């Protein structure tokens, strides 16, 4: 029963998007939920090597925008491409492995230890288990690998969640309020993540309510209000 045979027809995963094409290109993207607009006619372009911050108050649609770029949320209007794939097109799943995302809640399993959590993420992306341990050490949690996630403090979980993005080298890094619950030392992880990505011709989209904080990390900050980029 070959559910999975070697896929010949499939394009290679790290498709070299030529350096002058934008990694993210949204044209008049709208999202509405139950008829209420959450995003309206958003235009956004992210070029290779660029880092962009989106600032705005609660409920402005920042996380939704991030969800659209991460291919989680299907836009109800407009069009756009992410890493060369049309949004909601048949190729979106293929580009997912090149996207790194950290939401405002950590994506860790409470019943597993931090080490097991990172090991799972590493093995699912084709890295050796040791890679998981290595990134944990990088974010300063080398000694905490044996602790179950449910026993960890919020700050530790944030660090471990960011460590997920260090396993591979995603071309597109999406961060949602990444500094929430992080101390001064740990904020350097975000800095490292952003410079690492942009130096490799990737792009970063970072969302926060704190415009001043954002400008310390990214090249350019735009503001969002009531579902619009202003």
């Amino acid at each position, binding site marked *: 029963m070959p559910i999975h045979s070697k896929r010949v027809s499939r394009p290679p995963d790290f498709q070299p998007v030529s350096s002058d094409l934008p990694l993210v290109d949204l044209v008049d993207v709208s999202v*509405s*939920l*139950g*008829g*209420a*607009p959450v995003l309206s006619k958003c235009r956004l372009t992210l070029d290779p090597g660029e880092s962009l911050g989106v600032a705005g*108050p*609660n*409920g*402005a*649609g920042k996380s939704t925008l991030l969800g659209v770029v991460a291919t989680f949320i*299907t836009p*109800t209007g407009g069009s756009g491409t992410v890493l060369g794939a049309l949004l909601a097109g048949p190729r979106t799943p293929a580009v997912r492995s090149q996207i790194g995302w950290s939401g405002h809640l950590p994506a860790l399993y409470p019943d597993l230890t931090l080490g097991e959590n990172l090991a799972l993420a590493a093995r699912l992306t084709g890295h050796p288990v040791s890679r998981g341990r290595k990134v944990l050490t990088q974010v300063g949690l080398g000694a905490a690998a044996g602790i179950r996630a449910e026993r960890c403090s919020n700050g530790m979980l944030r660090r471990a969640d960011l460590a997920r993005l260090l396993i591979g080298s995603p071309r597109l890094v999406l961060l949602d309020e990444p500094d929430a619950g992080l101390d001064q030392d740990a904020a350097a992880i975000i800095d490292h993540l952003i410079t690492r990505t942009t130096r490799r011709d990737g792009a970063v989209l970072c969302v926060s309510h704190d415009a001043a904080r954002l400008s310390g990390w990214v090249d350019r900050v735009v503001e969002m*209000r*009531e*579902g619009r980029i202003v």
Partner: protein
Amino acid sequence: MKKRLLAVLSGVALGVGLILAFTSPPDLLQGDFVRILYIHVPSAWLAFLAFGVTAAGSIGWLFTRRMSWDRAAEASAEIGVLFTAIALATGMIWGKPVWGTYWDWGDARLATTAMMFFVYLGYLALRRTTTDPRLRARRSSVLGAVAVVQVPLVYFSVKLWRTLHQGLTIRPDGIQMDGAMVAALMANLAAFTLLYATLLIYRTALARIEEAAASERAPARSPVTVPRLGEAEA
């Protein structure tokens, strides 16, 4: 206007069907009890038709993502559940005098029909739980497309297994029925099909209005504003 014409037409057809149902001859064995057939069989037929349309609507939505497909799927499922219930109820009422029991547990036709009823009841329950039309369509289309496999199972159950329920009356080798009865049954089948079309059109129109109303009610601006703490205390 066309909608109203269809409604009138199906009303007239139902009337004709009813008259034929009462003027057709009684059955040699069952006597007047046979007349319940003229509701029972068309209801069951509508249920099959309706669930087929639900599956078509679900698959159509999955491929095109056009909301009209989903509305048709929902409307059809509601009609289907209603007429499955009518078919079950009339079957039970018919069964008591004619078979000697309302329900028989060993009978495959009864068992599979009840199963179909419950699955589509679940389909409707699933739809009730989501308010956003697109999310609702996403959830229910998978179930709507998969659940239709039961329809042929219900229809052919009397052929596949030994049942208390009678076999197929309308078969490729002819209709096992008196001519006047066939006329009455066909008239009622046609009338019920017209009724189905009417209900489907009205229900989808209603769903369209509901969706439009929901998006009108929805706040056009962000629900979060600047806190006004000073005012509240003053």
